[in-house]
């Protein structure tokens, strides 16, 4: 090789090393490219990775030292904020959190200081719900190529700059006058943003749609149910809402989404058959929206048993055969583990709460689970170290009473739902191994579990309850290794990230609509970060003490 050739080779090597170093640093200003957002230090997507596993590869905080966890910082998110269902994302040193009034806050992930706030113009006048539907909350943003994507309550999809919070474009995805509203975080991948819509209880027709990230133009739309008055859908009916971000598998160019109940919700006489594709997992081509397969979790639903929580993807080995698989926890109280290529059950569905339900009548029938689940929108987490998924469960039976009158309000619920007197809502937290569909361990919980879970390479799984207690379980055994009392109910799962060599666990707390309607815990809205050696927080009652009080054990 000539001297010039050696110099060029050294230059190329230097450029390559510099590129690697830059990529490893991540995008500290929040305007990072999609490449740097793959950094293990970040939490760049709703579920951290494309498979939506909610598994962090960080292990500074682990089973040996988690008892040293303490508060790094804590910040409120604004005046009169009383619910918090936001799932944060973290890029470099910036954490993005949404408020229940659709604002996006960019926070310094080390100090909690607000860097900027984006406040969209939102028409909240249709936030007319009472018990949990049609109430304004926001579950987070999607991020790709320096843009953040936000859905607002009044059905606008907006793109804003991740660096400055400047609005780039806004598109209307549904008509709020029909009862359609948005609470979900969208998903972003390969130049597209994927969205769904809520409002099944008002007879809204559910869909998944893709929008162009540059222009906001709609690329395709897949309706989850026929138009009202056609097929099985009666006049004024609908359903099949999508409440959580679709999960994307770039290898197969497939997006997976869960769908909601048919409408009328608890009256089935006017909607014959299975009512496809309600209460289903659907697999769509990411480029065209063409249906690849579906798996219905509850045929001809009469109990409002949505497949609301987001899908998690992972690899399994069954009888020596490697497969791509997915899991979803339904409001019907069953965990489904499916072949991701075909949608077929890999194992019989795994029950994780009490199940005892019959068709509702005009006299009223006690139904378990009640129409809040099971597992509501709460994301499950997966750990490749235990080959297990971690499922949040709600034990809250309700009386469903059919009524044939429909005037206003939830036009298509079809009746009333009542929590019986002296009911004590509780929960479950269950680990299920995905190679065999068996329960690895299961914990009774003193309150409904509503926020979802997060796992880490430190051998931990985090989840929070309605009393405001954040638990760190040993992912393998289910032993509680640490707990901290934040005094605000959990309605979202934590995220885990690292800045300058320090690992943080970030929790958004304040409760869900269910928290307020059933008075399960304190509502509010705060963002709290934890790190090793941080300020000690109260532990609250131990799980054993809390369970003794809740269950009378």
């Amino acid at each position: 090789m000539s001297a010039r050739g050696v110099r060029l080779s050294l230059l190329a090597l230097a450029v390559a090393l510099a590129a690697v170093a830059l990529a490893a640093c991540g995008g500290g200003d929040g305007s990072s490219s999609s490449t740097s957002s793959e950094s293990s230090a970040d939490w760049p997507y709703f579920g951290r990775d494309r498979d939506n596993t909610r598994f962090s590869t960080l292990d500074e905080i682990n089973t040996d030292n988690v008892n040293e966890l303490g508060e790094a910082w804590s910040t409120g998110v604004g005046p009169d904020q009383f619910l918090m269902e936001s799932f944060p994302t973290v890029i470099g040193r910036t954490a993005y959190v949404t408020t229940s009034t659709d604002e996006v806050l960019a926070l310094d992930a080390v100090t909690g200081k607000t860097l900027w706030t984006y406040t969209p113009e939102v028409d909240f006048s249709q936030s007319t719900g009472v018990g949990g539907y049609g109430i304004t909350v926001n579950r987070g943003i999607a991020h790709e190529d320096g843009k953040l994507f936000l859905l607002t309550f009044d059905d606008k999809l907006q793109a804003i700059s991740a660096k400055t919070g400047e609005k780039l474009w806004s598109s209307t995805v549904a008509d709020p006058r029909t009862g359609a509203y948005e609470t979900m975080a969208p998903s972003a991948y390969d130049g597209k943003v994927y969205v769904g819509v809520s409002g099944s209880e008002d007879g809204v027709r559910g869909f998944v749609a893709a929008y162009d990230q540059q222009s906001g133009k709609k690329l395709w739309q897949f309706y989850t149910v026929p138009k009202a008055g056609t097929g099985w859908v009666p006049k004024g009916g609908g359903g099949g809402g999508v409440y959580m971000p679709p999960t994307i598998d770039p290898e197969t160019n497939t997006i997976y989404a869960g769908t909601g109940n048919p409408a009328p919700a608890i009256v089935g006489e006017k909607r014959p058959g299975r009512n496809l594709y309600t209460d289903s997992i659907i697999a769509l081509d990411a480029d065209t929206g063409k249906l690849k397969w579906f798996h219905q979790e509850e045929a001809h639903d009469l109990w409002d048993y949505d497949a609301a929580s987001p899908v998690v993807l992972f690899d399994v080995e069954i009888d020596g055969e490697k497969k791509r698989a997915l899991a979803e926890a339904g409001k019907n109280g069953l965990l489904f583990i499916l072949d991701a290529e075909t949608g077929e059950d890999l194992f019989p569905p795994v029950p994780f709460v009490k199940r005892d339900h019959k068709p509702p009548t005009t006299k009223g029938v006690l139904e378990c689970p009640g129409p809040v689940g099971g597992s509501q929108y709460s994301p499950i987490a997966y750990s490749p170290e235990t080959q297990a998924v971690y499922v949040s469960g709600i034990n809250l039976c309700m009386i469903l009473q059919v009524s044939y009158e429909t005037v206003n309000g939830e036009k298509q619920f079809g009746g009333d739902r009542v929590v019986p007197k002296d009911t004590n809502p509780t929960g479950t937290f269950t680990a299920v191994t995905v190679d065999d569909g068996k329960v690895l361990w299961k914990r009774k919980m003193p309150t409904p579990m509503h926020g979802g879970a997060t796992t880490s390479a430190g051998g931990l799984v985090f989840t929070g309850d309605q009393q405001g207690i954040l638990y760190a379980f040993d992912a393998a055994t289910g032993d509680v290794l640490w707990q901290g009392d934040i005094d605000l109910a959990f309605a979202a799962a934590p995220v885990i990230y690292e800045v300058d060599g320090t690992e943080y666990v970030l929790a958004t707390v304040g409760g869900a609509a269910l928290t307020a309607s059933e008075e399960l815990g304190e509502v509010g809205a705060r963002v709290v970060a934890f790190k090793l050696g941080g300020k000690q927080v109260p532990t609250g009652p131990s799980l054993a003490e809390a369970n003794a009080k809740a269950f009378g054990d």
Partner: protein
Amino acid sequence: MSRSLFSSYSRSRSRITAAVAVALALLLAALTLAPAAVARGGEGWGRYPSFIGRYHLRAAAGGDLHVVGGQLTMFPQEEFPGSVQPAGILNLKLLGGRNDLVYLTDLTHRGARGRDATIKGGGFLGPEIGAFRGRLLAPGRIRAKITTRSLGTVEALFVRFSRSPTP
């Protein structure tokens, strides 16, 4: 005192005693029934068409967070068939652009013009965080003080621009 006089006095005393007893009974009955009567009389803001709709908010005093505008939607809420009750959604615009969203429930009136409500946070079943104390100036025009811990006291004029609660 003559007997007749006594008798007269006695009859008179009996009549007085009876009258006092009746009055006391009436007073007791009134006191017993009063809270329910007041509650019945004070419920609501009047007939639905008289106040349902959407209102612009013009802030006269912006409170601690400097409310600069907003919109109030009053609507007949029905979660389930037969459960209709009026309620309000108050979206306030703060100086600097933040959204503030609170909910009006348990509407009551004071006399012909007083229009009050409880303010809740996060949703209609959220915690009680303040009070709406208004005065009806004319159909579709309400002057009100909105008090919450976050906002302090906001003084505003609400002017109805649509009789429909739906955009």
